[in-house]
């Protein structure tokens, strides 16, 4: 008994392990995990990044008829420093790619991203030299909202899906909150993955790469 206690105390991880166990116990008994997630999900501060027609639908979602303040998004943060969820509404040209990346990097944790509409999610009809083929090649995306543009109901459904995702997060999993910086090549994903998800689909397969 005495021997065990001594070896336990001298281990550098002993205190940390005990503390983590205590935190887990408190979270499981008190429901703090649920409480934190509930409050996070219901007070999202969106950072609108509107570049095209999707931004019009985004504004309609924000305005009185659809009113996403009903879902806790009362305050739109026009500074990334005070935002929780980045909503990319519209197509993203390559020239804007470093801008949205910087905005995302400036947002404090916890943070989420909604990709609104076909162009933000896949490049949409703009399968050309100037357009990013899906913003997930630039920043991690949590919810994709399809549509061209999506109706406000569609965006609200995406927001509710995000609520669901947030409520399923665990405070004990630190990997959720880890920053995902660009790698040494300056990319977020491996180049093969970017090439693969940028492949033409639908009508654009009939266009050729060379003139």
């Amino acid at each position, binding site marked *: 008994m005495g021997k065990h206690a001594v070896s336990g105390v001298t281990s550098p991880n002993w205190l940390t392990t005990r503390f983590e166990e205590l935190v887990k116990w408190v979270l499981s008994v008190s429901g703090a995990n649920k409480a934190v997630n509930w409050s996070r999900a219901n007070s999202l501060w969106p950072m609108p990044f509107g570049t095209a027609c999707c931004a019009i639908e985004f504004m309609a979602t924000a305005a009185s008829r659809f009113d996403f303040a009903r879902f806790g998004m009362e305050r739109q943060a026009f500074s990334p420093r005070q935002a929780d969820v980045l909503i990319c509404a519209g197509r993203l040209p*390559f*020239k804007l*790619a*470093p*801008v949205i*990346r*910087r905005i995302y990097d400036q947002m404090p944790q916890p943070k989420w991203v909604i990709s609104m509409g076909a162009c933000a999610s896949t490049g949409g009809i703009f*399968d*050309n*030299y*100037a357009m*990013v*083929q899906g913003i997930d*090649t*630039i920043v991690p995306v949590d919810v994709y909202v399809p549509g061209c543009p999506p109706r406000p109901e569609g965006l609200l459904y995406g927001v509710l899906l995000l609520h669901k995702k947030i409520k399923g997060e665990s405070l004990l999993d630190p990997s959720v909150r880890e920053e995902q910086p*660009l790698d040494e*090549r*300056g*990319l977020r994903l491996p*180049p*093969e993955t*970017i*090439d693969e998800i*940028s492949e*033409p689909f639908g009508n654009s397969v009939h*266009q*050729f*790469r*060379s*003139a």
Partner: protein
Amino acid sequence: MNPSVEAGRATLGSAIGRVVESCGDTIVYVAAERLRDVLTWLRDTPGEAYDYLVDITAVEYRDRERPLEVVYTLRSLGRGAELRVKVELDPRGALTLDSVVPLWQGANWLEREVYDMFGVSFREHPDLRRILMWETYAEGYPLRKDFPLRGRFSRAEQVRQALTANPEAHYSIDELSIAAAAAALPADMAERLRRGERGTLPHSE
């Protein structure tokens, strides 16, 4: 037929090439080396007074034998007359023209756009840089017919180059100087101004 054509031919002679009527508009083809003479005459002659430069653009045709055309749309605000002036350039040769910024300040960005999209250089332009694509864009001139729709590089390389571009490097040295004079320039951009640096330009060598 726009009466300016006959008056111009009488004064400028061989600088005025063939004339085409299209949908009620008069299109005049002008010799490239006399372009600025012709436009100066059209602007400053009292009976002509084409004082407003509506647009500068360029056209490259699918037919490889046809020359690349640079198009100037002029308007006389007082007389309500319009004239379209075209210059033909051989796309296989040097795409160089005289700038008309000394005539119309508004031509500055228009010529930058033609340079950005078609690669036409304008002599004596005060600030000939890309305007739509970023300055270090290395894939070529997107509206040329030999330019592939999806660009020359792979998507991964395009994403890599876009993410490594400095979004603040779009300012010209002039703009940086103005901000520096107002003491509103961040330190890193002040350093760019001090070195007179514009990033690595792919077409400078």
